[in-house]
């Protein structure tokens, strides 16, 4: 699958340099490539530098003239203020995104298996209709959604958001698992079928134990997208009962621009997803691929 292709950093066989002039040219081209790559690297890291540096500046230090300088004195009050505002929301966000990721991954695994392996009439049509749910702008269902959640009596805040992230995470989880199960060797499933196991037993006994890689990808994907969501959060929660994106927006959009606290807050709010990205980067990329390139 495409995932492995990205991760295998195997350099392509270098074309044998036949003459010295050619190897000289190859060297220049490699130097040039490194130079460009490093320039881009610096550009990409500029916002990270600003976040980090500004988060440690005192109000008097964050003046325009010293905008790009290191802090004169490393000052942690901004971090303390950000933590005070964000810490209750952090707990709520974990309580939201972990169950939502697990439930939509489980349902996604079931769908993916059925759609990949247990062909039924119109399976492809059903799959396409499921997939459409991934692309719609949620604004197109938002007003009735607000009314539906009120009518169902789902309290605003984490409970509502749990329902929404679970439901609207289903298409991508289904897609990822469908592609994943399409790559499980046919004979493994056939062997179980010959033994007379029904489909539900095949799924529970043979397929689920094989599904760990699929789960890693969907869990990471769902964790990240639910953690970073702002649209549902702003419609269905507020700074008192909502996830961390709402609290961060509240912190950063105050009338008095508290730059050190906002920047520290942005770092705190990004920390969990960045950790996931750094530790589980391989599978993170796998999810990105599954979301686009078909296997």
């Amino acid at each position: 699958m495409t995932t492995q292709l990205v991760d295998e950093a195997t350099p392509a066989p270098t074309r044998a340099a036949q003459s010295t002039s050619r190897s000289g040219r190859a060297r220049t081209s490699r130097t040039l490539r490194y130079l460009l790559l490093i320039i881009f690297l610096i550009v990409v890291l500029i916002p990270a530098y600003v976040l980090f540096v500004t988060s440690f500046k005192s109000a008097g230090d964050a003046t325009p003239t010293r905008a790009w300088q290191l802090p004169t004195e490393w000052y942690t009050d901004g971090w303390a203020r950000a933590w005070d505002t964000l810490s209750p929301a952090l707990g709520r966000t974990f309580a939201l995104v972990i169950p939502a990721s697990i439930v939509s991954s489980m349902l996604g695994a079931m769908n993916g298996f059925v759609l990949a392996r247990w062909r039924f009439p119109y399976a492809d049509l059903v799959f396409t209709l499921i997939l459409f749910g991934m692309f719609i702008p949620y604004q197109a269902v938002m007003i009735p959604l607000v009314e539906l959640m009120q009518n169902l009596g789902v309290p605003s805040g984490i409970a509502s958001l749990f329902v929404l992230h679970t439901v609207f995470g289903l298409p991508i989880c289904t897609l990822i698992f469908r592609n994943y199960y399409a790559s499980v060797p046919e004979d493994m499933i056939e062997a179980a079928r010959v033994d007379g196991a029904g489909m539900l037993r095949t799924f529970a006994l043979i397929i689920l134990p094989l599904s760990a890689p699929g789960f890693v990808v969907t869990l990471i994907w769902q964790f990240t997208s639910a953690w970073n969501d702002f649209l549902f959060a702003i419609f269905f929660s507020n700074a008192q009962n909502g996830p961390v994106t709402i609290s961060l927006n509240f912190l950063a959009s105050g009338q008095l621009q508290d730059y050190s606290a906002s920047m520290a807050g942005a770092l705190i709010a990004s920390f969990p997803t960045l950790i996931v990205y750094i530790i589980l980067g391989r599978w993170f990329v796998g999810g990105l691929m599954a979301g686009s390139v078909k296997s």
Partner: protein
Amino acid sequence: MLTKVRSWGPPLLLISPTLVLLGVFVYGLIGVNINTSLTDNIRGQTTKYVGLENYTSLFTDDTFIYSLRNLAMYTVAFLAGTLFFGFVWAWLLERGLRGEGIFRTTYLFPMAVSFVASGVVWRWLLNSNTGESASGLNRGLDMIGLGFLQNSWWTDETWGILAIAMPAIWQLSGYIMALFLAGFRGIPDELREAARMDGASEWKLYRHVIFPQLSPVALSAIIIIGHMSLKVFDLIMSVAGQTNYTTQVPATQMWLAFTRGEYAVAAAIGTVMLVVVAVMIVPYLVHNYRSERGR
């Protein structure tokens, strides 16, 4: 009959929770939303149907037209920027070189951060003050002798929306790089070798071998970035705020209508957004569906 139930039953059982949920939350609510958009609904209270009045007043409202214009400009800039950087980075990395992992990881990391968090730092970077009080990028440009490039960024009425595309490009170019990198690595070496044997120049090699092989990846990239772009909301909320005129897009207009309690108008904007996205997504899904069936 019984055998039919035996073969159909289990897969339907596994997939039915999703079908019900998406049937209600996606297709059902789209229907309700369209219905609401034809009424005079204020905060959930409807007195009568008004036909297409909400739509006609939207399309005669200068601000809404301006928001559509902004959306189109933003989409073009976002697509052009991510495709350009994504392709260049992948191209620089594709032959493999030492430290590839570091570049790849760094280029991709902004993807793990929420738009709300990156908005915090980009609001600082895109500070519109110039001259003495310049901060952010304007100050930085001055420091490296490019002071003439100082501008008012997102506060400009004609071009302001393009400044909002900058953080979006910063966040998503790494994703497009990962897609292109997978595409490059999926091209069999024999294909390149064969072209070289035939004496094809580097340019001809790209023109006739590599670009055609990458076109499915480019299509995926356009679909992904395009549909994200049409939904832009979080970034604008955190960089410019909801009421800033120069960065209005349909999603912010929809949110403002919602906060004013004009649910019917908000629903109409949601429907317009759905149509805009569907124009792009439906042909893609149909194309995929056909190729699935042809498998």
